């Protein structure tokens, strides 16, 4: 039997919490999630059952047979060798063209959206031109591309040409070695090859690539005419050279993409006419062929066109031209014109709303089997998932009205039906948003998907306006354009649309780890517990820090050192990306690059600088404990604390208890919250914003943990908040440390709302009571909670609605819990694919109940 929440007295009434769906009374808590999937058609049921998941667990792929392919690295290398002497941007275009022209294509049974980014659906490509370390990592693994000798030779070839080879020389090797520890700082992007991009999908859907080619060719013609003008003026005329190269590269790239899509069209036709025996599928394959011949060359006319064209753009931008995590887009707004054409007006590719839902389900399954050639470290930090695929829906239109539409609803309905870990969804929450859509958002959350995660619409709008003032081009986002924002990855808003989108992670992304920085700050910059080396500047032994302010300053110096270094790495990489890692296809579909003849990596119209502090709450709680017990109460000395930490608290049990019981974040505690608010605003954000990045704007913190709270926790020694060495750190960006928030959900909101200054985003993980959320009052309580959250001006929140009983049952019998999904931090994961260490951190999160005081604070009408 399902657990039902106990009745409570509220506003003079006894409130009962019967389940909203009475049939769920017979489903035991231990197996609820296994009853919630409902693929809408036989096709999507089959596609899900045969999905080639690329989930990783503890850095290993979960499914047998997943491995890296060699074709991409072979073909890009072949083109690079053959194009020596040509302009670099042309070489990049020829590299992409050679891959697309020679790539083996894949068409799978039952699918309607076709195309894959490697030579076999069980494979994923590698990127030797980015980072040789990331390739070397594969060569010594079970997932090595075959033949290994050829792959090794390719990797060696690229060493001097790769981003890593280009950038390393501009850094002190000691600094790089500190970064490669990935304990105070994430390793530089030029060593990991990790990227994120927001492709301007809209130009492809609206214009088609043939038109983009025409535009580039017209620009080349004009440029050549301008160069031929007399009298010659070198100050103007020479500027056309780079532009002409960029436009020519765009033409090469776009022609290659069209030819590649049309090869897919031929494949579908060949299979229909020579292999397929089912007449219905035959007909479908011929339709697929027709669609793929037409798009992305021509503008999309219906919803099927739009899904297919979007898929091609995704594959090129995220997996074939270079690797990039993410699935950033405002999908509902982008697809609505095609939904309207197909579902409402039935003008082209006529279908019903239910058909549109099936298409969303199919897209979600395509993403679920999209493999990413990430290094082992990056596979480890996304346990139980594939990669960070996150799309955005909801929000407001440029005129301020509600942006939700029928496509928003189709996306949410499909998401709830098909039940996959990816892609995750971000919902832009505005109080004017329609209740119908919010109920669908709630439906996904209540079913335990862990998403949509929610962001505050108006905070994001203001943030994009703020950044736009720093545009070096004087062309940042207009007020109208800010309304088309989406999360670039899991937390940070950026523009979507026809131009000004973020093209590279060197703008925003990458992590820094305050908990470990505090550890080294307490040890004169030395890491005694993990790397046994100097990890930062010498800021003095903690025993000599006579006041709390001196400790604060020591931390600040360590933090500034690490922050400046990580952002310098990104900007140096950006410098070289614009010269050697141009993205002519992305440039061709960006209106700014097209107009100006500039490369997507080099051109920055809208600054969006951010970096991710992860493990901030462990550091902040530690600061609180030190201030209270050492500097205020003087119960212990710093020397005693250092002895206890070096002993991992062993033999110092009383002291451990005191430090563990010191005030903690998330309880609306004035003592703790005052210090922690200052920690966030003065150091984490205040120090970071002193930095100016490539785009001319400040860099602001985006606190979000992904799976790094586990990885960094395991590399961080014991901390003064009472944590033992090696234990996981805090799981959000501003979430209370697991199990330390004792005052209920509204106390958490009040604490979090105190941090307002110098932040770009902060991830708040909350775990809500399953019986309350599944009760008939679930939506009313959640809705009131969300409106209060909005009123408190909090940036973000995401939820786990999953019972401890079910998670424990899954630990015992994983094979019976394949559909159990949990929110880790910024992404959702299949619970049984998370290592036990990580599973336990989810179980340890406080399951928030709602008492009468909470309901009163939320002003819920029941």
């Amino acid at each position, binding site marked *: 039997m399902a657990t039902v929440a106990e009745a409570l007295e509220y506003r003079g009434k006894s409130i009962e919490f019967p389940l909203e769906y009475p049939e769920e009374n017979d489903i035991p808590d231990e197996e609820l999630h296994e009853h919630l999937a409902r693929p809408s058609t036989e096709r999507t049921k089959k596609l899900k059952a045969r999905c080639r998941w690329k989930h990783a667990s503890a850095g290993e792929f979960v499914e047998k047979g997943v491995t890296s392919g060699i074709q991409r690295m072979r073909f890009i290398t072949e083109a690079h060798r053959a194009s020596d002497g040509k302009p670099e941007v042309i070489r990049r275009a020829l590299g992409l063209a050679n891959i697309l022209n020679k790539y083996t294509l894949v068409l799978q049974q039952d699918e309607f959206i076709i195309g894959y980014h490697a030579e076999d*659906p069980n494979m994923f490509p590698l990127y030797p031109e980015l980072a040789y370390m990331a390739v070397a990592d594969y060569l010594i693994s079970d997932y090595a591309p075959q033949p290994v000798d050829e792959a090794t030779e390719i990797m060696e070839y690229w060493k001097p040409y790769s981003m890593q080879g280009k950038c390393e020389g501009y850094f002190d090797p000691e600094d790089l070695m500190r970064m490669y520890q990935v304990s105070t700082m994430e390793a530089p992007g030029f060593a990991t090859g990790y990227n994120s991009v927001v492709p301007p999908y809209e130009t492809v859907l609206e214009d088609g690539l043939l038109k983009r080619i025409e535009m580039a060719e017209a620009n080349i013609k004009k440029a050549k005419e301008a160069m031929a003008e007399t009298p010659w003026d070198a100050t103007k005329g020479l500027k056309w050279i780079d532009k002409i190269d960029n436009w020519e590269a765009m033409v090469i790239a776009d022609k290659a993409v069209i030819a590649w899509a049309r090869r897919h069209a031929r494949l579908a036709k060949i299979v229909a006419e020579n292999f397929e025996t089912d007449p219905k599928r035959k007909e479908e394959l011929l339709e697929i062929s027709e669609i793929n011949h037409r798009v992305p060359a021509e503008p999309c006319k219906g919803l099927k066109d739009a899904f297919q064209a979007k898929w091609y753009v995704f594959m090129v931008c995220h997996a074939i031209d270079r690797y990039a995590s993410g699935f950033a887009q405002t999908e509902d707004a982008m697809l609505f014109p095609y939904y309207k054409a197909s579902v409402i007006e039935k003008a082209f590719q006529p279908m019903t709303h239910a058909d549109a839902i099936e298409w969303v389900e199919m897209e979600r399954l395509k993403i679920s089997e999209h493999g990413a050639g990430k290094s082992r470290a990056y596979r480890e930090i996304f346990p139980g998932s594939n990669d960070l695929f996150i799309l955005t829906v909801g929000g407001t239109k440029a005129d301020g009205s509600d942006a939700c539409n029928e496509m928003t609803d189709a996306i949410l309905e499909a998401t709830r039906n098909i039940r996959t870990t990816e892609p995750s969804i971000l919902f832009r929450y505005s109080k004017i948003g329609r209740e119908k859509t919010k109920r669908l958002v709630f439906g996904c959350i209540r079913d335990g998907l862990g998403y949509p995660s929610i962001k505050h619409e108006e905070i994001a709008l203001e943030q994009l306006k703020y950044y736009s003032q720093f545009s070096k081009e004087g062309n940042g986002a207009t007020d109208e354009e800010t309304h088309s924002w989406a999360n670039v990855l899991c937390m940070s808003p950026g523009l979507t649309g026809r131009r000004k989108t973020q093209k590279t992670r060197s703008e925003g992304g990458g992590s820094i780890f305050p908990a470990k920085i505090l550890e080294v700050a307490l040890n004169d910059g030395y890491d005694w517990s993990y790397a046994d080396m100097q990890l930062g500047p010498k800021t003095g032994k903690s025993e000599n820090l006579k006041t709390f302010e001196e400790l604060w300053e020591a931390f600040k110096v360590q933090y500034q050192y690490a922050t400046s270094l990580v952002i310098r790495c990104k900007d140096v990489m950006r410098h070289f990306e614009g010269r050697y890692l141009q993205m002519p296809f992305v440039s061709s579909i960006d209106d700014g690059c097209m107009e100006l003849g500039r490369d997507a990596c080099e051109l920055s119209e809208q600054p969006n600088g951010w970096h991710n502090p992860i493990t901030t709450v462990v550091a902040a709680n530690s600061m609180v404990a030190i201030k209270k017990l050492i500097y205020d109460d003087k119960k212990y000395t710093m020397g005693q604390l250092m002895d206890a930490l070096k002993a991992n608290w062993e033999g110092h049990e009383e002291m451990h208890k005191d430090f563990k019981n010191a005030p903690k974040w998330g309880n609306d505690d004035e003592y703790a919250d005052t210090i922690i608010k200052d920690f966030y605003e003065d150091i984490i954000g205040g120090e970071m914003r002193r930095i100016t990045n490539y785009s001319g704007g400040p860099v602001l913190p985006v606190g979000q943990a992904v799976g790094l709270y586990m990885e960094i926790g395991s590399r961080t020694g014991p901390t003064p908040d009472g944590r033992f060495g090696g234990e996981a750190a805090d799981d959000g960006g501003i979430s209370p440390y697991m199990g330390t928030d004792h005052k209920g959900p509204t106390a958490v909101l009040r604490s979090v709302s105190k941090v307002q200054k110098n932040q770009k985003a902060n991830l708040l993980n909350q775990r809500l009571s399953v019986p309350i959320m599944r009760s008939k009052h679930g939506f009313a309580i959640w809705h009131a909670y969300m409106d209060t959250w909005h009123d408190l001006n909090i940036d973000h929140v995401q939820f786990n609605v999953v019972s401890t009983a079910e998670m424990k049952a899954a630990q015992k019998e994983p094979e019976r819990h394949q559909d159990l999904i949990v929110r880790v931090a910024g992404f959702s994961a299949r619970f049984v694919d998370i290592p036990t260490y990580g599973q336990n951190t989810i179980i340890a999160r406080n399951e928030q109940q709602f008492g009468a005081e909470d309901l009163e604070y939320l002003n819920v009408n029941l």
Partner: protein
Amino acid sequence: MSKCGECALFFQVPDDADDFEPGKADCVTEIKDEKGKYWLSKPVFDNMKACGTFKKA
């Protein structure tokens, strides 16, 4: 020695295709594994040496 051009899986690229080259074709093969069926298409030329999946046309 058999050539790709003699194979039943050799599908000539139409001469109005973007990637047309004389003698160029799509080599389309059907694969079946525990997850289901899928088809692969590789660009080949008629005079290339046939591979292990050669099927006389």
